[in-house]
């Protein structure tokens, strides 16, 4: 949808204007870009894996996610007020921001394009099973779905169910099973 030539030029021109006026330093922009290259769903995967192996941590995560996540060193912008919601055989959680693109940056990184798309934002709250089908996911009809629309500064992290056949796995190997989408609710952990 972006104009393939107009928009990059527009952005470049704006940067030049802001720099010339002394409002931004190019190296500050570089530093922001660089900072977000490092942040991604691997952070959240560590949180989930820890909750799978450490019942006390799981408890803390479900009661005060912001603090529990900070224990692992994650936090900051767009993660100030975290809530973790846990999938069970009875309930599946799905996160959306219908009004814009609210997303827990410190644990999942910046959101993928589909998360910000009108297709996802419009349909997640009225037809989540249809949305899950777009992701190749079919839940049991008996599974309830709870959709969380991030309308405030609360950021949600889905704790997916630990896959069967992973007893005794070390935490870092478990973390590899935890996909970005499984922590949004549009996916499941990789089959072990």
């Amino acid at each position, binding site marked *: 949808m972006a104009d393939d030539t107009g928009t990059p030029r527009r952005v470049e021109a704006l940067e030049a204007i802001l720099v010339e006026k002394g409002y931004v330093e190019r190296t500050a922009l570089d530093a922001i870009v660089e900072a977000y290259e490092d942040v991604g769903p691997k952070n959240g995967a560590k949180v989930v894996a820890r909750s799978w192996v450490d019942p006390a941590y799981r408890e803390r995560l479900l009661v005060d996610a912001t603090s529990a996540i900070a224990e692992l060193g994650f936090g900051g912008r767009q993660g100030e007020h975290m809530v973790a919601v846990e999938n069970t055989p009875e309930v599946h959680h799905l996160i959306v921001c219908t*009004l814009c693109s609210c997303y827990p940056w410190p644990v999942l990184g910046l959101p993928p394009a589909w998360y910000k798309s009108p297709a996802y934002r419009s349909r997640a709250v009225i037809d989540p099973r249809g949305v899950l089908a777009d*992701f190749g996911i079919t839940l049991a009809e008996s599974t*309830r779905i709870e*959709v969380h*629309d991030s309308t405030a500064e609360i950021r949600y992290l889905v704790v997916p169910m630990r896959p069967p056949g992973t007893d005794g796995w070390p935490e870092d190997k478990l973390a590899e099973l935890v996909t970005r989408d499984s922590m949004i609710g549009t996916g499941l952990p990789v089959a072990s």
Partner: protein
Amino acid sequence: MNGAADLGGMMGFGPVVVEPEGPPFRADWERRAHAMVIAMGAAGHWNIDASRYARESLPPGEYLTSAYYEIWIKALERLLVAHGLVSAHELASQQSLRPGAELRRVLHPDDVRAMLAARRPYERPVEAAARYAVGDRVRTRNMHPTGHTRLPRYARAKTGVIERLHGAHVLPDSNAHGAGEHPEWLYSVRFAATELWGDDADPSLSVSIDAWESYLQAP
């Protein structure tokens, strides 16, 4: 406002175009646009609610045909003009034509990491006790302000149940317009899909929103 950004329940956008896990940016201009929005936000001339309002105020057709970071950059341009930091003429001619104004704060490269890592909570102390408790039934107000609000259209005049209390948070409806933070108790409110979408809706589905106390009333 009832703008194009308020998308919950709309139809006609087709299937979700799924992408594999990977870098969130698809072009370099997206990286720069994102960084500029953050850097200019750090200058302190407007807050996050004002930014959201600028985005949702784009003409609906333009909003819906713009890539997401295009929306961000267009809104940033509008904020810069509204705050007298860049002129519309400068934007149109794509060059700076006069010296910059005095910014409240210029983000220094060395401060970037610390700024991004800092918690900047939206919770505020308030004296009033929370009016509702977990389990209470509440009804959302039927309100259609022309200004900013975070109560989506699909969840107005609907009855739900308080699911969580989040403390008192900055109220976007006033904060977006520079009218103060006016913190209020913030709640997760859960609605049955049949309440939101009618009798034909999936009975196994519920949707929660986070709602400030002034969005709610007794059912």
